[in-house]
């Protein structure tokens, strides 16, 4: 056994992702998914050993919104709790480590993103290097477009291939009641060439929650737990000019350390907000056509920032819960042009 304990995702819930959610504060958006995962497992708030969340206050411009979101957890009497200013996938990682150390047997992980109050393309520029990059205000689509062009120049893709990625994602999303963009969506005009509107994720608000549990506890809470066989995350230099944008060595390394290449996969949920990034990830993970990529529609169909990575883990787990997958890879990304990447390998027992 590679880890001290076996830990599984035993429940997953997500909101519909919507273009606007003005009538809801963050806590009002989060609460339904918290209640949903508790209902699925039959646990009460007080049964949870550790709670961890991922979000960023910059999205909605509400200082300390993450402390207000805690109102939805029922944090009295005081609970063991933590927050990451990152996608909820990294909150899940922290919770997993907490359970591996034996400090908790169950964990509640949630994430939310309310992009509608601001301009997410501009907001994300504030995570960039403040010396050489942020003063130029390069927005998230511009940076992804530089990566896409590098990939096209290297012969790794072309515009029709990118359009096909987007079309397949939105077609698959037709079966996903929570997705924001589904069905046949035109490629549209260039937002930042070579990326067209169809190559970019929709802007939306949403939340997701997951419950983790160890060993027999997981078997008690879920008929077919999605066991985390390995999980790792790696980061690359922040300066785009020192990286090969057509490759994702951090994804490959994380996948290797998570054990992704040790046995065949049947499913991969990749967090690729831009069509070109799916191409980079497929190449880096060496995925062949036998692997079902993003049956949920992926981030091109619904991209609640800070929750979209956690949703990849949740969608892969839910597929195992339903018996539709036996061995799935889940990936989450953070930062410009796939700077930081997390990979988990999930398995069901036959």
């Amino acid at each position, binding site marked *: 056994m590679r880890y001290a304990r076996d830990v599984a995702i035993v429940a997953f819930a997500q909101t519909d992702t919507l273009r606007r959610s003005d*009538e809801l504060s963050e806590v*009002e958006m989060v609460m339904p998914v918290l209640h949903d995962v508790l209902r699925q497992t039959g646990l009460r708030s007080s049964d949870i050993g550790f709670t961890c969340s991922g979000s960023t206050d910059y999205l909605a411009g509400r200082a300390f919104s993450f402390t207000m979101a805690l109102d939805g957890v029922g944090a009295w009497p005081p609970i063991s709790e933590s927050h990451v200013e990152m996608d909820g996938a990294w909150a899940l990682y922290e919770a997993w480590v907490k359970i591996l150390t034996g400090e908790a047997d169950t964990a509640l992980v949630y994430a939310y993103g309310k992009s509608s109050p601001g301009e997410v393309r501009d907001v994300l520029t504030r995570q960039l290097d403040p010396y050489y990059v942020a003063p130029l205000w390069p927005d998230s689509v511009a940076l992804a*477009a*530089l990566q896409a062009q590098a990939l096209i120049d290297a012969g790794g893709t072309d515009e029709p291939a990118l359009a096909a990625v987007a079309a397949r994602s939105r077609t698959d999303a037709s079966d996903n009641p929570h997705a924001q963009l589904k069905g046949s969506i035109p490629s549209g005009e260039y937002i930042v060439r070579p990326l067209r509107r169809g190559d970019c994720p929709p802007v939306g608000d949403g939340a997701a929650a997951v419950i983790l549990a160890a060993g027999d506890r997981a078997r008690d809470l879920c008929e077919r737990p999605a066991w985390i066989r390995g999980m790792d995350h790696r980061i690359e230099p922040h*300066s785009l000019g020192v990286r090969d944008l057509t490759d994702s060595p951090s994804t490959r390394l994380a996948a290797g350390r998570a054990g992704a290449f040790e046995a065949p996969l049947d499913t991969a949920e990749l967090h690729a907000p831009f069509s070109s990034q799916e191409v980079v990830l497929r190449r880096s993970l060496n995925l062949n056509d036998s692997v079902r990529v993003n049956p949920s529609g992926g981030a091109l169909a619904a991209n609640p920032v800070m929750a979209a990575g956690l949703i990849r883990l949740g969608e892969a787990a839910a597929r195992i819960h339903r018996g539709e997958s036996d061995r799935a890879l889940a990936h989450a990304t953070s930062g410009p042009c796939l700077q930081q990447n997390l990979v988990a390998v999930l398995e069901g027992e036959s």
Partner: protein
Amino acid sequence: MSATPSPDLLRAPLVVEFPFTRSLGPVQSAFLTGLRERTVLGVRTSDGKILVPPVEYDPVTAEEIRDLVEVGATGTVTTWAWNPDPRRDQPLTTPFAWVLVRLDGADTSLLHVLDAPGPESVRSAMRVRIRWAEERTGAITDIACFEPHESEPTAHVTGHSGEFDDAVTGIVTPARLDYTYSPGRAQTGFINALAGRRTVGERCPSCRKVYVPPRGACPTCGVATAEQVEVGPRGTVTTYCIVNIKARGLDIDVPYVYAHIALDGADLALHGRIGGIPYDQVRMGLRVEPVWTEGSRHPDHYRPTGEPDADYDLYKELL
């Protein structure tokens, strides 16, 4: 979640601005001061690569690196992206290309923009040169942009001390983000009631506590609150402090008292200033009522009602 926001939901513009003030280390200081002097510096890593823009630690080995060199003001585009619709604060106001440029002599690329007539005139591997800003302060924006320029690439670099007169040692990167803020259903109800000089909270369906102001959830039970309950207008001072420092822009004489006030019917105290009584006579248990001023959306302060003080047992859970 419902897709159509209710039309009476409150919304207001919200601007978040912050000057991001950063000190510079020796390498960043040399690079940005160099730009002011129309000199582009890179740094040499232990394996001989030249990084432009330079960093202070080797991205591969994490070693401290200080060996500066001067590179060319001409270079080669390594990738590009055409921006048809410039956004506020971006370097050019007319359509332009984002570019990564490998300056002559460098092994890595710098992110900036290229002023070109249209996307058909841009390609990877095209030659470009720096167009310097007329006024330069020691910032990445001292490079106004790149412009197309045919020239032969060179790999020549020269050593540089990195020393300049009057070196730039810090930068301020102004940041401004614009939002349309909506407080959501629960707080919209609270604010709208205040406009009618009423204070409303919401009751938890589980523990029955009434929260003021309401935020839509009971922080103890973790469930939604929805039942609106009017509270006050009178209340009890549960605890207080004496403010001796005059706040900028506030026309209130010091010392004054700022208090936690449990409005009658509320299970959570809110904050308010106490007036109409000398500061040194305010006490726990004092009964108070709100004082409204013309056009105000919330009570200006609270003043004594003249009732007998509340019994400690009545408010001890609300401190």
